[in-house]
């Protein structure tokens, strides 16, 4: 079990890094109050690791279902008009997005 962060260890810089991973352009004021609140929440939720969970299988799904699939049969798509109706901008039947910095 890795050592857990203490509340003082979640720094403002950590929060700024998490915000950039989550693509949220937090203001300085937001960074200030969020890092305080998150530290408190984090300290509280970290208690999960003190539960008797050794040798316990993680539970990712509430029901033990497996092998749910669908046949490979075409169903109707949206029309391009429906697909693009809510786009902030569209051009040539495509979604127009601001310039992209790098390919992935």
């Amino acid at each position: 079990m890795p050592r857990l962060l203490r509340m003082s260890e979640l720094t403002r810089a950590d929060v700024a890094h998490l915000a950039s991973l989550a693509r949220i352009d937090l203001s300085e004021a937001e960074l200030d109050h969020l890092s305080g609140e998150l530290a408190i929440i984090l300290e509280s939720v970290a208690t999960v690791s003190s539960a008797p969970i050794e040798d316990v299988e993680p539970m990712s799904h509430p029901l033990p279902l497996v092998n749910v699939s669908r046949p490979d049969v075409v169903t109707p798509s949206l029309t391009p008009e429906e697909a693009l109706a809510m786009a902030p901008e569209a051009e040539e039947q495509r979604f127009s997005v601001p310039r992209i910095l790098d390919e992935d």
Partner: protein
Amino acid sequence: MTTMTGGTAASAEAVLDYDEVTSAFDPVLGLEVHVELHTATKMFCGCPTTFGAAPNTQVCPVCLGLPGALPVVNAVAVESAIRIGLALNCEIAQWCRFARKNYFYPDMPKNFQISQYDEPIAFNGWLDVEVPAEHGEGTEVFRVEIERAHMEEDTGKSTHIGGLTGRIHGATHSLVDYNRAGIPLIEIVTKPIVGAGERAPEVARAYVATLRDLLKALDVSDVKMEQGSMRCDVNLSLMPKGSSQFGTRSETKNVNSLRSVERAVRFEMCRHGAVLSSGGSIVQETRHWHEDTGVTTSGRVKSDAEDYRYFPEPDLVPIAPSRELVEELRATLPEPPTERRKRLQNGWGFSDLEMRDVVNAGLVELIEETVAAGASPAAARKWWSGEIARRANAEGQDVPTYAGVLGVTPAHVVELESLITSGRLNDSMARQAWEGVLAGEGTPTQVADARGLELVQDTGALEAAVDEVIAANPDIADKIRDGKVQAVGALIGQVMKAMKGQADAAAVRELIIGKLT
């Protein structure tokens, strides 16, 4: 010797001579191949997967990632994944899950990709490929070990507007078509390939070629590299000879033809070699392959900040393929490519090297079809690996696809061969006819008719031409009379010229020798 690569100053990077690289370093290769399955519908929704449809006509709430929409797994995609795993000699998971790979990118509608993480559907396999023997003649089998094959979904396609030739840099904005988003992908990842040495580029190419043949035989994908239905990422690092410590690797993305795979590996080996031998260190980064210039350029640096935050996909339930299903699917596997290759090679009477070239050029199916259509194996090999292969290579395309583009078919080869065997065309005329076919002038017969290609059957005209040439070259004629038969070539050439090429060279030779001995 270190030289600079061509192109602009900004992209010029030092490269080391290939022989110097291989004498000082051992390459470690890793190949990641993404294959689009040719299922009727997408991985998680019922939208069709037709290539080349008008933009955003094959999208729905699921593959557009609209709020509230949920994925449901395509049963045929799972079966295809299992069949691919089995064909790659993998173990098939008893139980596995999908996972979300979280990162933001505009052509990925949900900003996460449904993929598989630590529980792939297939793992621990191998694929044998044929490469030139390390010492001496012939070929030998090189075993590429497979780490895993897992299922995931493709992204949409961005067109960059305002920059140069659709490049991302300098673009003002991009237009996104999500038709491709959600098409089932199988990602096949090799274990680190060590021990290939100087043959690493050929091993890489042979692996991708063999894999492509295998997937084609499985009938799970179109495997059209030029359309992106099969895409290859090349990981490469060097370690000093004698070391077993892997070096820092580069990851060259989207190397999308067999020839490019070979070239990209070679280039990266030379680039790494130059950096390392001058005391530098390799940056772990993605690199972009440039087909036109044959070089890679720096892409995104892989930093610690890259954190995909994988976790089990809560909207999908685990997959637990029954052993019965796995065995049922195993029974549907085609003949393994190596066995098939041996069988075909024996039947065709090709040498090891001929067969290897045929495999690496992706010609196996084409030759098979051509032989089935009535051509001799030698003729099929000769015509498909000649001029058309040179042109396809120059276009950066595979021969079968290029032939498709030109509309050239196995029937054309059959017809061409019969024009030779029937005695209408000699070899050089057949080449001219073939060129005409490649130029879209029609079938071989149509080209021959149109260009007036026909061996002269009139022996009178031929004899007259021979007599004329003998009379005009008394010195040579004397030599032949004295027994120097090899001198006949000079006379044949002149007769052929006089006949405007429309004579059978062998008949001319016989005629001359008959008259002079």
